[in-house]
């Protein structure tokens, strides 16, 4: 157990020092990533201004802007840059062998590395996120009550788990099909739409919207934002958390299975 703890601590320290080298650039590039918010504000102001009412499906301009800002937070938890690509790459050029020889649990190792990266990222990103949220503070209605905050934090944790295990599964598909990364881009586009990253899912027609509840995507972006903005009843929130949890477990299992069977297939080839 202490061995594993020291390993995690080491991984954490390495990722921290990696980030610190480029800290100036990091803060700037994080700020730049908020630039699309400007066009969203302008676009939705124009759209709402073209009608009589000051809202669309109960969301006024403040809610919409707050939504887009919160989506960036949710995506900071659920997006896994380089995960699928990294795994598929290691399978392609045979690097994966070294994990099969060493006494390391590959999935555990990847998870530890990812958590370390994310923790360091959140530490560093507090400054740019703080600046932006402060600038746009007028679009928020204040902090939600305590129990909602707890549900929000839980939903962010689920967003991380679903994102990680989903993309790891994608990576292990490379055991069967090497070109998987070329389709990743398409998956990311679909995710952009289905997760609510592109626009609040409330705008979809109800029959479509209800169907989305059962898909895993919205738990990676829309759901946490909706929890924070209290766009759902408490009952719906709890239900959503359970469905999200079920998806996290589901993808946890697919990760394990795809890895196990993939390795068996891989070593079967003697690769």
């Amino acid at each position: 157990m202490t061995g594993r703890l020291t390993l995690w601590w080491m991984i954490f320290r390495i990722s921290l020092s990696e980030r610190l080298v480029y800290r100036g650039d990091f803060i700037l590039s994080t700020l730049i990533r908020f630039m699309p918010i400007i066009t969203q504000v302008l676009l939705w102001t124009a759209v709402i201004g073209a009608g009589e009412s000051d809202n669309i499906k109960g969301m006024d301009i403040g809610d919409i802007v707050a939504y887009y800002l919160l989506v960036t937070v949710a995506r900071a938890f659920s997006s896994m840059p380089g995960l699928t690509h990294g795994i598929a790459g290691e399978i392609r050029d045979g690097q994966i062998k070294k994990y099969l020889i060493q006494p390391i649990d590959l999935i555990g190792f990847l998870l530890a590395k990812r958590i370390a990266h994310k923790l360091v990222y959140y530490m560093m990103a507090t400054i740019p996120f703080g600046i932006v949220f402060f600038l746009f503070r007028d679009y928020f209605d204040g902090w939600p009550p305590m129990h909602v905050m707890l549900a929000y934090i839980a939903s962010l944790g689920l967003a991380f788990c679903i994102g990680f295990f989903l993309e790891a599964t994608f990576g292990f598909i490379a055991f069967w099909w090497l070109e998987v990364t070329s389709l990743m881009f398409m998956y990311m586009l679909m995710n952009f739409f289905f997760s609510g990253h592109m626009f609040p899912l409330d705008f979809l027609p109800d029959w479509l919207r209800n169907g989305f509840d059962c898909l895993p995507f919205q738990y990676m972006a829309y759901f946490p934002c909706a929890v924070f903005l209290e766009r759902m009843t408490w009952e719906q929130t709890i239900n959503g958390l359970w469905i999200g949890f079920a998806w996290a477990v589901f993808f946890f299992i697919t990760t394990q299975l795809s890895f196990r069977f993939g390795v068996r297939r891989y070593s079967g080839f003697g690769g």
Partner: protein
Amino acid sequence: MDCLKTMPTIEVNNLTKTYRVYQKKEGLMQAIRGLGKREYKQVQAVRGINMQVEQGEFVAFLGPNGAGKTTTLKLLSGVITPTDGTATVLGHVPWQREDNYRRRFALVMGQKNQLWWDLPAQESFRLHQKIYRVPEEQFDATHDELVDLLGVRKLLGQPVRELSLGERMKMELIAALLHSPDVLFLDEPTIGLDVVAQHNIQKFLKHYQQERKITILLTSHYMKDITALCQRVVIIANGQMHYDGSLSGIIDEFGGHKNLTLQFPEGIENLPDLAMYGKVLEVQTPRVKLQVQRSEVGQVLASILSVHPVDDISVEDPPLEEVIANVFSTATDPGEDASA
């Protein structure tokens, strides 16, 4: 055209290249800061080179890393402009970059690749044909000749990325020679190749140069390349020329000493102390290797032979590599004069 004939193919006077480097820093903040104030370091890559090369010569540039060989080739091909000095190649000033000049030479760099990585070399050759405006029949003839000379016909359909380093270099050479240049600059063409591939490239270059009588400037780290190919050697170190002449002339000029090997009778008890005659390089009883000033060889031999019993004697020039390494190491210290 008559006046061109009397002119040397390459004429270089006081060619100098100085450039500034500054410590680059990562990041936008640093870049913005860097726009205002920068700390520069002056680097003198080439300092006042003078030389003339006649048509049909095969000249080697010899020098340690960073001596200015590649920079000189880039100056002569007009890729970069000099800080000072003049040069003409085939009657053109290279850095004016007239198309008529650019169509008449080629540059091959062993460490860089100009063929399309994912395509068969054949496709890159076609593009070169268009860019250099090589007429169809001439292209076919040159192409076939080069492909057969280098023995790569089977490889023409394979993507370049699947070729070995040696095969790729052959393709690079074909691409460079498709427009039948009059002057060819070769920068380390055999770098990283195995002995067989090196030998093949050398053989090809030698044959091609003798056949076409084109002018070639070559830089290389491998003495083998140079001894196999070049009649004339230019030693560049620290941006300056230190020697220009034949390969064997290097030893006459810089090999200030000879190596004497004295074989004493088997079973000799005490080897005589020879330190008074010169530097003792190696003692392997009963053999002693002695370094003696070139001018004193006769005198030293006479005195040793008159005092000691000696079975055998040989007098040799020091190895070429050693002499050249000596020139390099003295040249990098500007305080000393290499030819002293």
